[in-house]
């Protein structure tokens, strides 16, 4: 008797179902995507008991006729592609033709559909077998009802979680789709209660507002950036807000929601030094990549994509987020009262960043161009905000003059100035910390730090832990300008010190930095040199309470204006706070 047998199609479908249909949420995902592929403008989802007893998705799409309807339940039957060649550049959500049969194979499925002209069709299937096909009254569109999911797959059933957690997964799936397809009205209800009712939205922000509330959406920062053929848009959390609410990540590539750890890492890398170590920002990012540079046919649930060349894409994401963080308030920030001084246009953010010495140098320009076969790349690049040539030219230009508004120091802690739309306060310590941090990082990278020789070497006695911290970081301290030798025991003899500013107290800074390194508050910061730069910057910066002269304030302002991320210090606190006139007016009852 032969040991090997070709499986009956019902069994094969059940096995395939294991890949596509893991839990009710995946049923919802497949059905809603089908609805969207059918050109629906409204999708209504009804769920009962976390999807165990019922998942029903109704749309007003183009529907199917009597002939097609039963075929939809056959494996690899699809309207979306015809030949293998169509797989490249596929734009619809589904295309494998395996979702519906897979779902049908593990449930009681009823499909009602109508193309709008003439009678509709009802197909009733049980455990993958079509039981009957009959006429039905139905408006244009399709309704798929899935009951008794996994009733015939006890292994799956056993692995379902409680209905609350299955419901949460469904809500996540629907939210993700809703963020991507903002033109569609989506209604989701659970056990008879309406959970989400989203009208068509004009923007990502409006959709986020409809899901999580307008206040949440308003506090997000807009991201918009293009590099070569890759375009990144979206909204990200302000560093000051990170960690205050639960974190949400939404990534979409060419309109398809995906999970991609690499892209998330790239976006998070842009936050480095603006948020405390260990906290993660909320991200809503949508990438547009030429379809031939990305392969979406990797994962049955299509949650993953493969980039032909992932480096330039990740770099563009990081750049995009960094720009958004760096230019938060930037356009107006550097040019107080633009209306009153027409000669001073707000500095183009692009120019400022490109001029900043540590701005990412376009290392991968060539790669990106090379990876993109001619036509697509040039077409996409032409649409980009700044063509690469212009960016390079900007990078070589000296930094533009920064217009300094009249500054006053208040509370010996903040610099205050007026601008057209309100008052701006700058925290002098945070600002200086940010300036020094970026300068120290540059010095560590370039190895050119000024080091002032001392007439009288400092003898610094350290505790054992501090001495060890010093030893560990000896090379980095040296790169920053500290020249020190061990002097027996835990004593170091410092003969030269950094000279970051005239008020710098080298000995105190060294001690505090070592104490800080020992206390390890920065432990989670990825790289040791960044951690040291952050610590030293914090210790070397002017403190709250230091009276600053007018020249010092101006110098601080100019230096801050030319940093990469002026709005945040290395701990993620804000350096800049903006009091709007309307807020002030309201306080005075002038509203």
């Amino acid at each position, binding site marked *: 008797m032969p040991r090997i047998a070709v499986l009956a199609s019902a069994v094969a479908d059940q096995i395939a179902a294991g890949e596509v249909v893991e839990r009710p949420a995946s049923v919802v995902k497949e059905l809603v995507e089908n609805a969207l592929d059918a050109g629906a403008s409204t999708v209504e989802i009804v769920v009962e008991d976390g999807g165990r007893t019922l998942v029903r998705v109704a749309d007003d799409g183009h529907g199917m006729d009597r002939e097609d309807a039963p075929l939809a339940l056959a494996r690899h039957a699809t309207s979306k592609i015809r030949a293998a060649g169509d797989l490249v550049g596929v734009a619809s959500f589904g295309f494998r033709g395996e979702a519906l049969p897979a779902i049908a194979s593990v449930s009681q499925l009823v499909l009602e559909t109508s193309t709008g002209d003439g009678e509709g069709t009802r197909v009733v299937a049980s455990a993958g077998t079509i039981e009957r096909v009959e006429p039905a009254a139905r408006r244009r569109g399709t309704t798929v009802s899935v009951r008794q999911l996994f009733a015939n797959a006890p292994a799956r059933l056993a692995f379902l979680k409680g209905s609350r957690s299955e419901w949460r997964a469904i809500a996540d799936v629907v939210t993700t789709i809703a963020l991507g397809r903002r033109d569609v009205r989506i209604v989701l209800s659970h056990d008879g209660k309406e959970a989400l009712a989203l009208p068509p939205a004009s923007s990502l922000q409006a959709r986020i507002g409809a899901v999580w509330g307008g206040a949440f959406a308003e506090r997000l920062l807009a991201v918009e950036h293009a590099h070569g053929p890759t375009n990144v848009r979206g909204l990200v959390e302000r560093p000051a807000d990170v960690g205050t609410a639960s974190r949400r990540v939404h990534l979409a590539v060419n309109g398809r929601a995906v999970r991609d750890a690499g892209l998330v890492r790239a976006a998070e890398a842009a936050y480095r030094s603006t948020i405390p170590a260990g906290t993660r920002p909320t991200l809503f990012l949508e990438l547009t990549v030429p379809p031939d540079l990305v392969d979406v046919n990797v994962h049955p649930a299509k949650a993953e994509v493969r980039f032909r060349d992932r480096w330039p894409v990740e770099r563009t994401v990081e750049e995009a987020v960094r720009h958004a963080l760096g230019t938060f308030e930037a356009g107006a920030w550097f040019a107080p009262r633009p209306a009153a001084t027409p000669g001073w246009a707000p500095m183009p953010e692009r120019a400022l960043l490109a001029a900043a010495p540590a701005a990412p140098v376009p290392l991968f320009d060539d790669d990106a161009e090379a990876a993109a076969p001619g036509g697509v790349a040039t077409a996409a690049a032409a649409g980009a905000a700044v063509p690469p040539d212009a960016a390079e030219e900007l990078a070589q230009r000296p*930094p533009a003059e920064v217009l300094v508004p009249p500054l006053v120091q208040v509370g010996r802690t903040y610099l205050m100035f007026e601008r057209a739309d309100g008052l701006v306060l700058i925290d002098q310590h945070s600002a200086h910390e940010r300036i020094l941090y970026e300068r120290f990082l540059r010095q560590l990278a370039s190895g050119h730090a*000024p080091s*002032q*020789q001392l*007439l009288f070497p400092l003898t610094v006695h350290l505790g054992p832990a501090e001495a060890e911290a010093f030893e560990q970081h000896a090379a980095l301290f*040296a790169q920053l300008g500290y020249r020190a030798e061990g002097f027996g025991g835990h004593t170091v003899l410092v003969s*030269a010190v950094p*000279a970051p500013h005239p008020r710098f107290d080298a*000995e105190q800074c060294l001690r505090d930095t070592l104490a800080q390194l020992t206390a390890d508050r920065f432990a989670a910061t990825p790289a040791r040199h960044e951690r040291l730069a952050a610590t030293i910057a914090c210790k070397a910066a002017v403190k709250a309470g230091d009276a600053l002269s007018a020249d010092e304030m101006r110098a601080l302002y100019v230096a801050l204006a030319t940093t990469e991320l002026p709005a945040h210090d290395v701990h993620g606190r804000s350096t800049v706070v903006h009091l709007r006139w309307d807020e002030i007016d309201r306080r005075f009852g002038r509203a």
Partner: protein
Amino acid sequence: MRFTITREKLQEGLSAVGASIPSKTTLPVLANILVETTDKGIRLSGTDLDIAVATEVAADVDSPGGITIPAKKLIEIARELPPNPVKVASSGDQRITLECGRSKFKLLGLPKDEFPAFPAVKFANALRIKSGELQQLISHVAFAVSTEESRPILNGVLWELRADRMRMVATNGHRLAKMELPVNGGGGSQDLIVPPKALEQIRRLFPAEEELEIAKGENHLGFRSPLTSVFTRLIEGPYPNYEQVIPKDNDKVCIADKALLTSAIKRMSVIASDQTHRIKLSFNAGMLKFAVQTPDLGEAQDEIPVRFDGDPIDIGFNASYLLEVLRFIPTDEVKLTLKAPERAATIEPEAWKDPAAFLALVMPLRLVD
């Protein structure tokens, strides 16, 4: 208390004392000037508890007494008075009236008992030094003190008194200035560390030809001329051993024209970093070259002819330290000596015909590489 004084004498007295009044104080009476009658006129006193200044001016005293008067208002009033004799009278502990021509002021003061007592300094065995010599030392050295609070000792000027010479030294740990004068008949040997603010008063208040009596109390130093006296708190030593850091073996010697050198450094500082002021000097036979490079800004070069003896050397400095020192070089030519890029450079006047000796040290500012 009642006296009459000319407007000019009042203004003169107030301008001497006014600078010792603290602009902000938690002790209200320190914002006042103590006015007391003496045999010959009145004495005005002011203090911020670190430094105290008292000066006597001529006045016609009708009835003796004393009171404290708000300094700022009194000075403003004196400045605006018409050129007539000023009649000042107190009634009770706190009320003052001031009349000048047709102008009349009533002020509220504080009782004179509230005014802090001046430090007890006995002038019995005082040193006698010509004010001009002291002022010469102060004006050449005091600029170099540290303004940073972490090492209080460097916030003071070291004043070494010896039998045959006196010397002042000041440093902030990056640069040092030292000046020495021969004196005759100085008594004993003392090392005093004096706050530069007090020295500034000495430089300002006493005419150059006047002979000063100088005496040390327990923790204070007193300076006295027939009319004016200044008291200052002393900073507790010991002062760092500066002799040890003055290089003796600098074998590279450069003689440069001070004006050329100064203007070249000033040109370089335009491009030097606002924060570190770093410029590079390259000494070669016959030529001193300057270079500065500041990322984000630009670069500059310059050169001046010099006399240079030794192997060529490149060395970096904080330009503002060099300029400060050059300002106090009394000769047209200046002598620089060097050893190595991480060793102290000295700067001295060249061919100075003066009994005094001046020397400045500047530590280099290196670029780590």
